[in-house]
Protein backbone atom coordinates (compact mmCIF):
# COMPACT_ATOMS: atom_id res chain seq x y z
CA UNK A 1 0.00 0.00 0.00
CA UNK A 2 1.49 3.32 -0.94
CA UNK A 3 2.04 5.92 1.75
CA UNK A 4 -0.53 8.63 2.22
CA UNK A 5 0.30 10.94 -0.57
CA UNK A 6 -1.96 13.91 -0.03
CA UNK A 7 -1.07 14.66 3.58
CA UNK A 8 0.00 18.26 3.36
CA UNK A 9 -1.73 19.12 0.15
CA UNK A 10 -3.76 22.30 -0.15
CA UNK A 11 -6.81 22.45 -2.39
CA UNK A 12 -4.68 24.05 -5.05
CA UNK A 13 -1.94 21.43 -4.75
CA UNK A 14 -4.53 18.73 -5.23
CA UNK A 15 -5.98 20.32 -8.31
CA UNK A 16 -2.53 20.61 -9.86
CA UNK A 17 -1.94 16.93 -9.29
CA UNK A 18 -2.62 14.79 -12.35
CA UNK A 19 -3.10 11.64 -10.33
CA UNK A 20 -5.67 13.26 -8.09
CA UNK A 21 -7.72 14.42 -11.06
CA UNK A 22 -7.80 10.92 -12.49
CA UNK A 23 -8.67 9.40 -9.11
CA UNK A 24 -11.72 11.66 -8.85
CA UNK A 25 -12.71 10.62 -12.35
CA UNK A 26 -12.21 6.97 -11.61
CA UNK A 27 -13.86 6.48 -8.23
CA UNK A 28 -17.55 6.45 -8.95
CA UNK A 29 -19.33 4.64 -6.16
CA UNK A 30 -19.82 6.24 -2.73
CA UNK A 31 -18.14 3.21 -1.13
CA UNK A 32 -14.95 3.62 -3.18
CA UNK A 33 -14.90 7.31 -2.40
CA UNK A 34 -15.44 6.82 1.34
CA UNK A 35 -12.63 4.31 1.36
CA UNK A 36 -10.30 6.80 -0.28
CA UNK A 37 -11.30 9.54 2.17
CA UNK A 38 -10.72 7.29 5.13
CA UNK A 39 -7.29 6.44 3.87
CA UNK A 40 -6.33 10.07 3.28
CA UNK A 41 -8.13 11.26 6.41
CA UNK A 42 -5.63 14.00 7.25
CA UNK A 43 -6.41 16.00 4.17
CA UNK A 44 -10.02 14.94 3.85
CA UNK A 45 -11.41 18.48 3.93
CA UNK A 46 -9.17 19.74 1.19
CA UNK A 47 -9.87 16.68 -0.86
CA UNK A 48 -13.60 17.18 -0.57
CA UNK A 49 -13.25 20.83 -1.58
CA UNK A 50 -11.03 20.02 -4.54
CA UNK A 51 -13.36 17.29 -5.68
CA UNK A 52 -16.30 19.69 -5.63
CA UNK A 53 -14.49 22.03 -7.96
CA UNK A 54 -13.52 19.20 -10.25
CA UNK A 55 -17.02 17.82 -10.41
CA UNK A 56 -18.27 21.05 -11.88
CA UNK A 57 -16.27 20.27 -14.98
CA UNK A 58 -17.01 16.61 -15.52
CA UNK A 59 -19.07 15.82 -18.58
CA UNK A 60 -21.19 12.73 -18.31
CA UNK A 61 -22.65 12.20 -21.76
CA UNK A 62 -20.72 10.97 -24.75
CA UNK A 63 -21.22 13.50 -27.49
CA UNK A 64 -21.65 12.09 -30.97
CA UNK A 65 -21.61 13.89 -34.29
CA UNK A 66 -24.78 13.53 -36.35
CA UNK A 67 -24.59 10.54 -38.68
CA UNK A 68 -25.30 12.37 -41.94
CA UNK A 69 -22.66 15.00 -41.28
CA UNK A 70 -20.21 12.35 -40.22
CA UNK A 71 -20.85 10.23 -43.27
CA UNK A 72 -20.58 13.16 -45.65
CA UNK A 73 -17.28 14.26 -44.17
CA UNK A 74 -15.89 10.74 -44.25
CA UNK A 75 -16.91 10.26 -47.86
CA UNK A 76 -14.89 13.31 -48.82
CA UNK A 77 -11.86 12.18 -46.84
CA UNK A 78 -12.01 8.62 -48.15
CA UNK A 79 -12.36 9.81 -51.72
CA UNK A 80 -9.43 12.18 -51.30
CA UNK A 81 -7.34 9.34 -49.91
CA UNK A 82 -8.17 7.04 -52.81
CA UNK A 83 -7.46 9.71 -55.43
CA UNK A 84 -4.28 10.80 -53.76
CA UNK A 85 -2.97 7.24 -53.40
CA UNK A 86 -3.80 6.43 -56.97
CA UNK A 87 -1.88 9.38 -58.34
CA UNK A 88 1.09 8.75 -56.17
CA UNK A 89 1.46 5.03 -56.46
CA UNK A 90 4.71 3.78 -57.95
CA UNK A 91 4.01 1.91 -61.14
CA UNK A 92 4.34 -1.82 -60.60
CA UNK A 93 6.48 -3.64 -63.07
CA UNK A 94 4.38 -6.76 -62.90
CA UNK A 95 2.69 -7.74 -66.10
CA UNK A 96 -0.98 -8.06 -65.49
CA UNK A 97 -2.63 -9.83 -68.34
CA UNK A 98 -0.90 -12.89 -69.71
CA UNK A 99 -3.82 -14.46 -71.45
CA UNK A 100 -3.36 -14.40 -75.21
CA UNK A 101 -6.09 -14.85 -77.79
CA UNK A 102 -5.01 -18.37 -78.65
CA UNK A 103 -5.43 -19.57 -75.13
CA UNK A 104 -8.95 -18.25 -75.06
CA UNK A 105 -9.80 -20.43 -77.99
CA UNK A 106 -8.45 -23.47 -76.23
CA UNK A 107 -10.53 -22.74 -73.18
CA UNK A 108 -13.71 -22.61 -75.19
CA UNK A 109 -12.87 -25.87 -76.92
CA UNK A 110 -12.16 -27.47 -73.57
CA UNK A 111 -15.44 -26.09 -72.35
CA UNK A 112 -17.41 -27.89 -74.98
CA UNK A 113 -15.75 -31.16 -74.14
CA UNK A 114 -16.58 -30.81 -70.50
CA UNK A 115 -20.20 -30.18 -71.14
CA UNK A 116 -20.22 -33.61 -72.64
CA UNK A 117 -18.32 -35.46 -69.94
CA UNK A 118 -19.88 -33.77 -66.98
CA UNK A 119 -23.13 -35.63 -67.16
CA UNK A 120 -21.72 -38.16 -64.78
CA UNK A 121 -21.60 -36.79 -61.28
CA UNK A 122 -18.08 -36.96 -60.06
CA UNK A 123 -18.22 -36.15 -56.39
CA UNK A 124 -15.16 -36.86 -54.36
CA UNK A 125 -15.70 -38.38 -50.97
CA UNK A 126 -13.24 -37.18 -48.42
CA UNK A 127 -12.06 -39.97 -46.19
CA UNK A 128 -12.18 -38.02 -42.94
CA UNK A 129 -15.46 -36.79 -41.54
CA UNK A 130 -16.04 -33.09 -40.85
CA UNK A 131 -15.62 -33.55 -37.11
CA UNK A 132 -11.92 -34.06 -37.52
CA UNK A 133 -11.59 -30.41 -38.43
CA UNK A 134 -11.99 -29.64 -34.77
CA UNK A 135 -8.90 -31.63 -33.89
CA UNK A 136 -5.58 -30.06 -33.33
CA UNK A 137 -3.21 -31.34 -35.99
CA UNK A 138 -2.88 -30.89 -39.69
CA UNK A 139 -3.25 -34.28 -41.36
CA UNK A 140 -1.82 -35.61 -44.57
CA UNK A 141 -3.59 -38.75 -45.68
CA UNK A 142 -1.53 -40.40 -48.37
CA UNK A 143 -2.90 -42.34 -51.30
CA UNK A 144 -0.98 -45.38 -50.09
CA UNK A 145 -3.10 -45.39 -46.95
CA UNK A 146 -0.66 -43.89 -44.45
CA UNK A 147 -1.55 -40.85 -42.38
CA UNK A 148 1.01 -38.24 -41.39
CA UNK A 149 0.37 -35.77 -38.59
CA UNK A 150 1.87 -32.32 -39.03
CA UNK A 151 2.49 -30.58 -35.76
CA UNK A 152 3.05 -26.98 -36.83
CA UNK A 153 0.14 -24.57 -37.19
CA UNK A 154 1.36 -23.68 -40.67
CA UNK A 155 3.10 -26.31 -42.78
CA UNK A 156 4.54 -26.43 -46.23
CA UNK A 157 3.91 -29.59 -48.23
CA UNK A 158 5.66 -30.20 -51.50
CA UNK A 159 5.09 -32.99 -53.98
CA UNK A 160 8.45 -34.13 -55.34
CA UNK A 161 7.85 -34.66 -59.03
CA UNK A 162 8.89 -37.99 -60.42
CA UNK A 163 10.22 -39.19 -57.08
CA UNK A 164 7.05 -40.70 -55.63
CA UNK A 165 7.58 -38.74 -52.47
CA UNK A 166 6.30 -35.74 -50.55
CA UNK A 167 8.46 -33.28 -48.65
CA UNK A 168 7.25 -31.57 -45.52
CA UNK A 169 8.59 -28.20 -44.36
CA UNK A 170 11.74 -28.51 -46.49
CA UNK A 171 12.73 -31.23 -44.13
CA UNK A 172 10.94 -34.54 -43.84
CA UNK A 173 10.58 -36.68 -46.96
CA UNK A 174 7.84 -39.26 -47.12
CA UNK A 175 7.59 -41.91 -49.74
CA UNK A 176 4.38 -42.34 -51.60
CA UNK A 177 4.21 -44.67 -54.56
CA UNK A 178 1.38 -43.82 -56.87
CA UNK A 179 -1.39 -46.27 -56.41
CA UNK A 180 -4.23 -46.97 -58.74
CA UNK A 181 -7.76 -47.34 -57.58
CA UNK A 182 -8.75 -50.72 -59.02
CA UNK A 183 -12.37 -49.74 -59.34
CA UNK A 184 -12.07 -46.52 -61.28
CA UNK A 185 -8.64 -47.10 -62.80
CA UNK A 186 -7.71 -43.63 -61.75
CA UNK A 187 -4.85 -42.55 -59.59
CA UNK A 188 -5.69 -42.51 -55.92
CA UNK A 189 -5.61 -39.16 -54.20
CA UNK A 190 -3.66 -37.69 -51.31
CA UNK A 191 -5.64 -35.61 -48.85
CA UNK A 192 -4.69 -32.72 -46.64
CA UNK A 193 -6.92 -31.95 -43.69
CA UNK A 194 -6.52 -28.47 -42.26
CA UNK A 195 -8.29 -28.12 -38.94
CA UNK A 196 -9.85 -24.90 -37.74
CA UNK A 197 -7.24 -22.43 -36.64
CA UNK A 198 -4.47 -23.62 -38.97
CA UNK A 199 -3.37 -23.18 -42.55
CA UNK A 200 -0.98 -24.74 -45.02
CA UNK A 201 0.92 -24.22 -48.26
CA UNK A 202 1.06 -26.98 -50.80
CA UNK A 203 3.11 -27.36 -53.97
CA UNK A 204 1.68 -29.87 -56.41
CA UNK A 205 3.50 -32.07 -58.89
CA UNK A 206 3.02 -29.61 -61.75
CA UNK A 207 4.37 -26.67 -59.78
CA UNK A 208 0.95 -25.26 -58.88
CA UNK A 209 0.96 -23.64 -55.43
CA UNK A 210 -2.08 -23.94 -53.22
CA UNK A 211 -2.58 -22.11 -49.92
CA UNK A 212 -5.21 -23.80 -47.80
CA UNK A 213 -7.18 -21.95 -45.19
CA UNK A 214 -8.54 -23.08 -41.84
CA UNK A 215 -11.23 -25.74 -41.82
CA UNK A 216 -10.45 -27.06 -45.28
CA UNK A 217 -9.95 -30.45 -46.88
CA UNK A 218 -8.10 -30.83 -50.15
CA UNK A 219 -7.49 -33.88 -52.33
CA UNK A 220 -4.83 -34.11 -55.03
CA UNK A 221 -3.05 -36.87 -56.93
CA UNK A 222 0.62 -37.65 -56.50
CA UNK A 223 1.03 -37.09 -60.24
CA UNK A 224 -1.14 -35.50 -62.88
CA UNK A 225 -1.26 -38.34 -65.39
CA UNK A 226 -4.51 -37.84 -67.19
CA UNK A 227 -5.74 -35.33 -69.72
CA UNK A 228 -6.60 -32.86 -67.04
CA UNK A 229 -5.28 -31.82 -63.67
CA UNK A 230 -8.09 -32.31 -61.23
CA UNK A 231 -8.21 -31.53 -57.51
CA UNK A 232 -11.00 -31.45 -54.94
CA UNK A 233 -11.70 -28.84 -52.33
CA UNK A 234 -14.01 -28.42 -49.36
CA UNK A 235 -13.03 -25.13 -47.75
CA UNK A 236 -10.99 -22.17 -48.91
CA UNK A 237 -7.87 -22.09 -51.03
CA UNK A 238 -5.84 -19.67 -53.03
CA UNK A 239 -4.32 -21.08 -56.22
CA UNK A 240 -1.39 -19.98 -58.33
CA UNK A 241 -1.77 -22.45 -61.17
CA UNK A 242 1.25 -23.36 -63.25
CA UNK A 243 0.66 -22.80 -66.89
CA UNK A 244 -0.04 -25.89 -68.92
CA UNK A 245 -1.87 -25.21 -72.11
CA UNK A 246 -2.44 -28.89 -72.76
CA UNK A 247 -3.80 -29.85 -69.37
CA UNK A 248 -6.55 -27.70 -67.92
CA UNK A 249 -6.51 -27.43 -64.13
CA UNK A 250 -9.87 -28.02 -62.51
CA UNK A 251 -10.85 -27.33 -58.93
CA UNK A 252 -13.88 -29.35 -58.02
CA UNK A 253 -15.99 -28.50 -55.02
CA UNK A 254 -19.31 -29.95 -53.90
CA UNK A 255 -21.25 -27.42 -55.95
CA UNK A 256 -19.03 -25.72 -58.48
CA UNK A 257 -16.07 -26.44 -60.69
CA UNK A 258 -13.46 -23.92 -61.62
CA UNK A 259 -11.34 -24.60 -64.66
CA UNK A 260 -8.15 -22.75 -65.52
CA UNK A 261 -5.08 -22.98 -67.66
CA UNK A 262 -2.65 -20.84 -65.71
CA UNK A 263 -3.73 -18.17 -63.36
CA UNK A 264 -4.28 -16.85 -59.80
CA UNK A 265 -7.57 -17.11 -58.01
CA UNK A 266 -9.16 -17.72 -54.65
CA UNK A 267 -11.99 -20.15 -54.01
CA UNK A 268 -14.07 -20.20 -50.86
CA UNK A 269 -16.35 -23.23 -50.91
CA UNK A 270 -16.98 -24.49 -47.40
CA UNK A 271 -19.59 -27.23 -47.24
CA UNK A 272 -21.00 -25.52 -44.15
CA UNK A 273 -21.44 -22.15 -45.85
CA UNK A 274 -24.35 -21.06 -48.00
CA UNK A 275 -22.22 -19.17 -50.44
CA UNK A 276 -19.22 -20.18 -52.55
CA UNK A 277 -17.08 -17.28 -53.64
CA UNK A 278 -14.46 -17.38 -56.36
CA UNK A 279 -12.29 -14.37 -56.99
CA UNK A 280 -10.04 -14.15 -60.03
CA UNK A 281 -6.89 -12.09 -59.70
CA UNK A 282 -5.05 -12.88 -62.89
CA UNK A 283 -5.64 -14.92 -66.03
CA UNK A 284 -8.92 -16.46 -67.01
CA UNK A 285 -11.17 -19.12 -65.56
CA UNK A 286 -14.39 -20.86 -66.38
CA UNK A 287 -16.77 -21.63 -63.64
CA UNK A 288 -19.87 -23.79 -63.59
CA UNK A 289 -22.38 -25.48 -61.39
CA UNK A 290 -21.61 -29.18 -61.26
CA UNK A 291 -24.81 -30.26 -59.62
CA UNK A 292 -26.84 -29.87 -62.78
CA UNK A 293 -26.84 -31.90 -65.93
CA UNK A 294 -27.08 -29.02 -68.34
CA UNK A 295 -25.06 -26.12 -67.17
CA UNK A 296 -23.58 -23.13 -68.85
CA UNK A 297 -19.94 -22.32 -68.30
CA UNK A 298 -19.30 -18.79 -67.14
CA UNK A 299 -16.04 -17.19 -68.02
CA UNK A 300 -14.41 -14.83 -65.56
CA UNK A 301 -11.91 -12.06 -66.16
CA UNK A 302 -9.44 -10.63 -63.64
CA UNK A 303 -10.89 -8.64 -60.74
CA UNK A 304 -14.18 -10.42 -60.85
CA UNK A 305 -15.96 -12.29 -58.12
CA UNK A 306 -18.37 -15.13 -58.78
CA UNK A 307 -20.77 -15.91 -55.98
CA UNK A 308 -22.62 -19.19 -56.01
CA UNK A 309 -25.72 -19.23 -53.87
CA UNK A 310 -26.61 -22.73 -52.72
CA UNK A 311 -30.21 -21.88 -52.06
CA UNK A 312 -30.87 -20.16 -55.37
CA UNK A 313 -28.38 -22.35 -57.21
CA UNK A 314 -27.15 -19.56 -59.43
CA UNK A 315 -23.81 -17.96 -60.09
CA UNK A 316 -23.61 -14.17 -59.96
CA UNK A 317 -20.66 -12.28 -61.39
CA UNK A 318 -19.53 -9.01 -59.93
CA UNK A 319 -16.65 -6.68 -60.54
CA UNK A 320 -14.25 -6.76 -57.59
CA UNK A 321 -11.52 -4.18 -57.86
CA UNK A 322 -9.98 -4.98 -54.50
CA UNK A 323 -9.39 -8.64 -55.33
CA UNK A 324 -6.18 -8.58 -53.29
CA UNK A 325 -8.29 -8.42 -50.18
CA UNK A 326 -9.56 -11.96 -50.77
CA UNK A 327 -6.13 -13.44 -50.48
CA UNK A 328 -4.90 -11.41 -47.56
CA UNK A 329 -5.46 -14.51 -45.40
CA UNK A 330 -2.48 -16.08 -47.16
CA UNK A 331 -0.32 -13.50 -45.43
CA UNK A 332 -2.12 -13.90 -42.14
CA UNK A 333 -4.57 -11.02 -42.52
CA UNK A 334 -8.32 -11.20 -42.61
CA UNK A 335 -9.52 -8.26 -44.64
CA UNK A 336 -13.16 -7.38 -45.15
CA UNK A 337 -15.10 -4.46 -46.55
CA UNK A 338 -18.75 -3.69 -45.92
CA UNK A 339 -19.13 -7.22 -44.71
CA UNK A 340 -22.07 -8.59 -42.78
CA UNK A 341 -20.95 -8.69 -39.18
CA UNK A 342 -22.32 -12.20 -38.78
CA UNK A 343 -20.20 -13.41 -41.70
CA UNK A 344 -17.12 -11.92 -40.07
CA UNK A 345 -17.92 -13.87 -36.92
CA UNK A 346 -18.37 -17.07 -38.91
CA UNK A 347 -14.98 -16.61 -40.54
CA UNK A 348 -13.32 -15.99 -37.19
CA UNK A 349 -14.88 -19.20 -35.87
CA UNK A 350 -12.92 -21.06 -38.54
CA UNK A 351 -9.65 -19.26 -38.07
CA UNK A 352 -9.57 -19.55 -34.31
CA UNK A 353 -11.53 -22.75 -33.82
CA UNK A 354 -14.09 -21.19 -31.51
CA UNK A 355 -17.84 -20.70 -31.35
CA UNK A 356 -19.65 -17.42 -30.96
CA UNK A 357 -22.82 -17.12 -28.93
CA UNK A 358 -24.94 -14.10 -29.57
CA UNK A 359 -28.43 -12.75 -29.94
CA UNK A 360 -29.07 -13.10 -33.66
CA UNK A 361 -31.78 -10.46 -33.85
CA UNK A 362 -29.45 -7.84 -32.44
CA UNK A 363 -26.33 -8.88 -34.36
CA UNK A 364 -28.09 -8.91 -37.70
CA UNK A 365 -28.96 -5.25 -37.20
CA UNK A 366 -25.35 -4.17 -36.92
CA UNK A 367 -24.25 -2.14 -39.90
CA UNK A 368 -21.76 -3.75 -42.31
CA UNK A 369 -18.20 -3.54 -41.06
CA UNK A 370 -14.88 -3.01 -42.74
CA UNK A 371 -11.50 -3.80 -41.40
CA UNK A 372 -8.34 -5.80 -41.37
CA UNK A 373 -7.43 -8.22 -38.61
CA UNK A 374 -4.02 -9.66 -37.95
CA UNK A 375 -4.64 -13.39 -37.62
CA UNK A 376 -1.27 -13.89 -36.00
CA UNK A 377 -2.65 -12.03 -32.99
CA UNK A 378 -4.34 -13.99 -30.25
CA UNK A 379 -8.11 -14.23 -30.16
CA UNK A 380 -8.13 -11.84 -27.24
CA UNK A 381 -6.37 -9.14 -29.23
CA UNK A 382 -8.73 -9.59 -32.15
CA UNK A 383 -11.77 -9.33 -29.90
CA UNK A 384 -10.43 -6.11 -28.39
CA UNK A 385 -10.15 -4.57 -31.84
CA UNK A 386 -13.58 -5.80 -32.95
CA UNK A 387 -15.38 -4.60 -29.85
CA UNK A 388 -13.76 -1.20 -30.18
CA UNK A 389 -15.21 -0.80 -33.64
CA UNK A 390 -18.66 -2.30 -33.02
CA UNK A 391 -18.86 -1.17 -29.40
CA UNK A 392 -20.14 -4.44 -27.94
CA UNK A 393 -18.84 -6.36 -24.91
CA UNK A 394 -17.74 -9.96 -24.93
CA UNK A 395 -16.57 -12.76 -22.71
CA UNK A 396 -14.23 -15.60 -23.61
CA UNK A 397 -14.66 -18.90 -21.78
CA UNK A 398 -12.54 -21.64 -23.26
CA UNK A 399 -13.60 -22.08 -26.87
CA UNK A 400 -16.80 -20.08 -26.57
CA UNK A 401 -17.05 -16.33 -27.02
CA UNK A 402 -20.26 -14.76 -25.80
CA UNK A 403 -21.20 -11.41 -27.23
CA UNK A 404 -23.17 -9.21 -24.92
CA UNK A 405 -25.21 -6.72 -26.80
CA UNK A 406 -26.40 -4.00 -24.51
CA UNK A 407 -26.89 -1.20 -26.95
CA UNK A 408 -25.59 2.08 -25.57
CA UNK A 409 -28.41 4.58 -25.47
CA UNK A 410 -27.50 7.50 -27.68
CA UNK A 411 -28.32 10.98 -26.39
CA UNK A 412 -31.27 12.46 -28.24
CA UNK A 413 -30.18 15.09 -30.70
CA UNK A 414 -32.25 17.28 -33.02
Amino acid at each position, binding site marked *: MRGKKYNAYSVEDLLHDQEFVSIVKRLNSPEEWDQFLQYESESANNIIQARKILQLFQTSEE*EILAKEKNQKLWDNIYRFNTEFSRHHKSISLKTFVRVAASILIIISLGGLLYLHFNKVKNQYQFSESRNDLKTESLLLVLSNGNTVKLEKSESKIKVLTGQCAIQIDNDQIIENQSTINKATNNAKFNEVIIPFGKKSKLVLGDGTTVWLNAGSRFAFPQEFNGKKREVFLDGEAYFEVAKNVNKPFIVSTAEINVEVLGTRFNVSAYKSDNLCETVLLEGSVNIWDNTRLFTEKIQMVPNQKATYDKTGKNIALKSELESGRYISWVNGWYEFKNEDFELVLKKLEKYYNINFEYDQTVISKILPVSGKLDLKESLNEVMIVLSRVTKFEYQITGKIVTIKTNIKKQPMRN
Partner: protein
Amino acid sequence: MTTDKDIWNEFKNEEANALSFIYSQNIDFLFFYGKRFTSDEEFILDIIQDLFYDLIKYRKSVSQTDNIRLYLLKSFRRKLLRGIEIKHKLTKLDREYNLVPEIVFSIEEEMITDEEQSIRVKFIRRGLKELNAKQREVIYYKFTLGYDYDQICEIMSINYDSARQLVSRSINSLKQFMSKNKFFLLFIYRRLTTE
Protein backbone atom coordinates in the same frame (compact mmCIF):
# COMPACT_ATOMS: atom_id res chain seq x y z
CA MET B 1 -1.21 -5.25 -28.46
CA THR B 2 -1.92 -2.70 -31.16
CA THR B 3 -0.74 0.61 -29.84
CA ASP B 4 -1.29 4.11 -31.15
CA LYS B 5 2.26 3.92 -32.43
CA ASP B 6 1.45 0.83 -34.51
CA ILE B 7 -1.75 2.26 -35.90
CA TRP B 8 0.01 5.49 -36.81
CA ASN B 9 2.74 3.56 -38.61
CA GLU B 10 0.13 1.56 -40.49
CA PHE B 11 -1.45 4.83 -41.50
CA LYS B 12 1.88 6.14 -42.73
CA ASN B 13 2.20 2.98 -44.79
CA GLU B 14 -0.99 3.85 -46.67
CA GLU B 15 -3.12 1.32 -44.90
CA ALA B 16 -6.68 2.47 -45.62
CA ASN B 17 -8.15 0.75 -42.60
CA ALA B 18 -5.78 2.62 -40.32
CA LEU B 19 -7.07 5.90 -41.69
CA SER B 20 -10.70 4.98 -41.14
CA PHE B 21 -9.91 3.74 -37.66
CA ILE B 22 -8.17 6.97 -36.71
CA TYR B 23 -11.07 8.93 -38.14
CA SER B 24 -13.83 7.00 -36.40
CA GLN B 25 -12.03 7.01 -33.06
CA ASN B 26 -11.51 10.76 -33.04
CA ILE B 27 -14.19 12.48 -35.13
CA ASP B 28 -16.74 12.98 -32.36
CA PHE B 29 -14.10 14.21 -29.96
CA LEU B 30 -12.63 16.65 -32.47
CA PHE B 31 -16.00 18.00 -33.48
CA PHE B 32 -17.16 18.76 -29.96
CA TYR B 33 -13.78 20.15 -29.08
CA GLY B 34 -14.18 22.49 -32.02
CA LYS B 35 -17.61 23.50 -30.71
CA ARG B 36 -15.89 24.94 -27.68
CA PHE B 37 -14.16 27.46 -29.87
CA THR B 38 -16.95 28.41 -32.21
CA SER B 39 -20.56 27.54 -32.82
CA ASP B 40 -20.12 27.50 -36.60
CA GLU B 41 -20.53 23.78 -37.31
CA GLU B 42 -19.81 23.91 -41.03
CA PHE B 43 -16.62 25.75 -40.29
CA ILE B 44 -15.54 23.11 -37.79
CA LEU B 45 -16.22 20.30 -40.24
CA ASP B 46 -14.22 22.15 -42.90
CA ILE B 47 -11.26 22.41 -40.57
CA ILE B 48 -11.47 18.72 -39.70
CA GLN B 49 -11.55 17.91 -43.39
CA ASP B 50 -8.54 20.12 -43.94
CA LEU B 51 -6.78 18.36 -41.07
CA PHE B 52 -7.27 14.93 -42.60
CA TYR B 53 -6.42 16.08 -46.11
CA ASP B 54 -3.09 17.35 -44.82
CA LEU B 55 -2.49 14.11 -42.96
CA ILE B 56 -3.05 12.21 -46.17
CA LYS B 57 -0.88 14.54 -48.23
CA TYR B 58 2.03 14.52 -45.84
CA ARG B 59 1.66 11.07 -44.33
CA LYS B 60 5.12 9.96 -45.34
CA SER B 61 6.78 12.87 -43.59
CA VAL B 62 4.68 13.26 -40.42
CA SER B 63 6.55 12.34 -37.29
CA GLN B 64 5.81 9.23 -35.26
CA THR B 65 3.56 9.46 -32.25
CA ASP B 66 2.57 7.48 -29.18
CA ASN B 67 -0.68 9.35 -28.75
CA ILE B 68 -2.73 9.90 -31.86
CA ARG B 69 -5.45 11.95 -30.21
CA LEU B 70 -2.93 14.37 -28.76
CA TYR B 71 -1.25 14.74 -32.12
CA LEU B 72 -4.53 15.44 -33.86
CA LEU B 73 -5.62 17.82 -31.15
CA LYS B 74 -2.52 19.94 -31.41
CA SER B 75 -2.77 20.16 -35.18
CA PHE B 76 -6.50 20.75 -35.10
CA ARG B 77 -6.26 23.51 -32.55
CA ARG B 78 -3.68 25.33 -34.62
CA LYS B 79 -5.84 25.13 -37.71
CA LEU B 80 -8.93 26.18 -35.79
CA LEU B 81 -7.33 29.28 -34.38
CA ARG B 82 -5.86 30.26 -37.71
CA GLY B 83 -9.18 29.71 -39.37
CA ILE B 84 -11.04 31.74 -36.79
CA GLU B 85 -8.53 34.55 -37.16
CA ILE B 86 -9.02 34.61 -40.90
CA LYS B 87 -12.77 34.42 -40.50
CA HIS B 88 -12.72 37.42 -38.18
CA LYS B 89 -10.53 39.38 -40.52
CA LEU B 90 -13.06 38.77 -43.24
CA THR B 91 -16.05 39.91 -41.21
CA LYS B 92 -16.93 43.53 -41.00
CA LEU B 93 -17.05 43.55 -37.20
CA ASP B 94 -14.67 45.92 -35.56
CA ARG B 95 -12.01 44.28 -33.55
CA GLU B 96 -9.98 47.26 -32.52
CA TYR B 97 -10.04 46.43 -28.89
CA ASN B 98 -8.67 42.96 -29.39
CA LEU B 99 -5.71 42.11 -31.59
CA VAL B 100 -5.80 38.50 -30.49
CA PRO B 101 -8.76 36.48 -31.79
CA GLU B 102 -11.45 36.12 -29.23
CA ILE B 103 -11.74 32.53 -28.17
CA VAL B 104 -15.22 31.84 -26.99
CA PHE B 105 -14.91 28.93 -24.65
CA SER B 106 -18.43 28.07 -23.77
CA ILE B 107 -20.21 25.05 -22.49
CA GLU B 108 -22.39 23.10 -24.85
CA GLU B 109 -26.06 23.81 -24.87
CA GLU B 110 -27.22 20.66 -23.19
CA MET B 111 -30.74 19.33 -23.37
CA ILE B 112 -31.64 20.43 -19.91
CA THR B 113 -34.18 18.19 -18.36
CA ASP B 114 -34.29 19.26 -14.77
CA GLU B 115 -34.00 22.38 -12.74
CA GLU B 116 -30.99 21.17 -10.82
CA GLN B 117 -29.06 20.73 -14.03
CA SER B 118 -29.98 24.13 -15.36
CA ILE B 119 -28.86 25.84 -12.17
CA ARG B 120 -25.62 23.91 -12.23
CA VAL B 121 -24.95 24.91 -15.82
CA LYS B 122 -25.75 28.55 -15.16
CA PHE B 123 -23.47 28.44 -12.17
CA ILE B 124 -20.59 27.04 -14.14
CA ARG B 125 -21.13 29.55 -16.91
CA ARG B 126 -20.94 32.41 -14.52
CA GLY B 127 -17.91 30.94 -12.86
CA LEU B 128 -16.19 30.50 -16.16
CA LYS B 129 -16.90 34.11 -17.08
CA GLU B 130 -14.53 35.01 -14.29
CA LEU B 131 -11.78 33.32 -16.21
CA ASN B 132 -10.13 34.51 -19.39
CA ALA B 133 -10.16 32.49 -22.58
CA LYS B 134 -6.79 30.83 -22.03
CA GLN B 135 -7.70 29.89 -18.49
CA ARG B 136 -10.92 28.35 -19.63
CA GLU B 137 -9.07 26.32 -22.21
CA VAL B 138 -6.51 25.07 -19.71
CA ILE B 139 -9.25 24.08 -17.28
CA TYR B 140 -10.93 22.09 -20.01
CA TYR B 141 -7.76 20.07 -20.64
CA LYS B 142 -6.85 19.67 -17.00
CA PHE B 143 -10.20 19.04 -15.33
CA THR B 144 -12.52 17.76 -18.02
CA LEU B 145 -10.12 15.75 -20.16
CA GLY B 146 -7.66 14.96 -17.37
CA TYR B 147 -4.52 15.72 -19.36
CA ASP B 148 -1.20 16.23 -17.59
CA TYR B 149 1.01 19.29 -17.91
CA ASP B 150 3.24 17.73 -20.57
CA GLN B 151 0.28 17.17 -22.82
CA ILE B 152 -1.23 20.59 -22.13
CA CYS B 153 2.03 22.34 -22.94
CA GLU B 154 2.28 20.30 -26.13
CA ILE B 155 -1.19 21.25 -27.31
CA MET B 156 -1.08 24.92 -26.39
CA SER B 157 2.59 25.45 -27.21
CA ILE B 158 3.34 27.05 -23.87
CA ASN B 159 5.90 26.18 -21.22
CA TYR B 160 5.29 24.42 -17.92
CA ASP B 161 5.40 27.56 -15.81
CA SER B 162 2.88 29.38 -17.94
CA ALA B 163 0.55 26.41 -17.90
CA ARG B 164 0.83 26.00 -14.16
CA GLN B 165 0.23 29.68 -13.59
CA LEU B 166 -2.89 29.58 -15.72
CA VAL B 167 -4.25 26.75 -13.59
CA SER B 168 -3.33 28.47 -10.32
CA ARG B 169 -5.03 31.70 -11.30
CA SER B 170 -8.09 29.81 -12.47
CA ILE B 171 -8.37 27.94 -9.19
CA ASN B 172 -8.14 31.17 -7.25
CA SER B 173 -10.79 32.84 -9.32
CA LEU B 174 -13.04 29.83 -8.94
CA LYS B 175 -12.55 29.65 -5.19
CA GLN B 176 -13.40 33.32 -4.88
CA PHE B 177 -16.41 32.91 -7.07
CA MET B 178 -17.63 29.95 -5.06
CA SER B 179 -17.32 31.73 -1.74
CA LYS B 180 -19.26 34.68 -3.16
CA ASN B 181 -22.06 32.37 -4.22
CA LYS B 182 -22.52 30.14 -1.23
CA PHE B 183 -26.25 29.87 -1.74
CA PHE B 184 -25.83 28.23 -5.11
CA LEU B 185 -23.17 25.98 -3.71
CA LEU B 186 -25.40 24.68 -0.98
CA PHE B 187 -28.10 24.00 -3.50
CA ILE B 188 -25.90 22.12 -5.92
CA TYR B 189 -23.78 20.22 -3.47
CA ARG B 190 -26.64 18.92 -1.47
CA ARG B 191 -27.45 17.07 -4.66
CA LEU B 192 -23.87 16.01 -5.37
CA THR B 193 -23.24 14.55 -1.94
CA THR B 194 -26.38 12.48 -1.89
CA GLU B 195 -25.62 10.90 -5.26
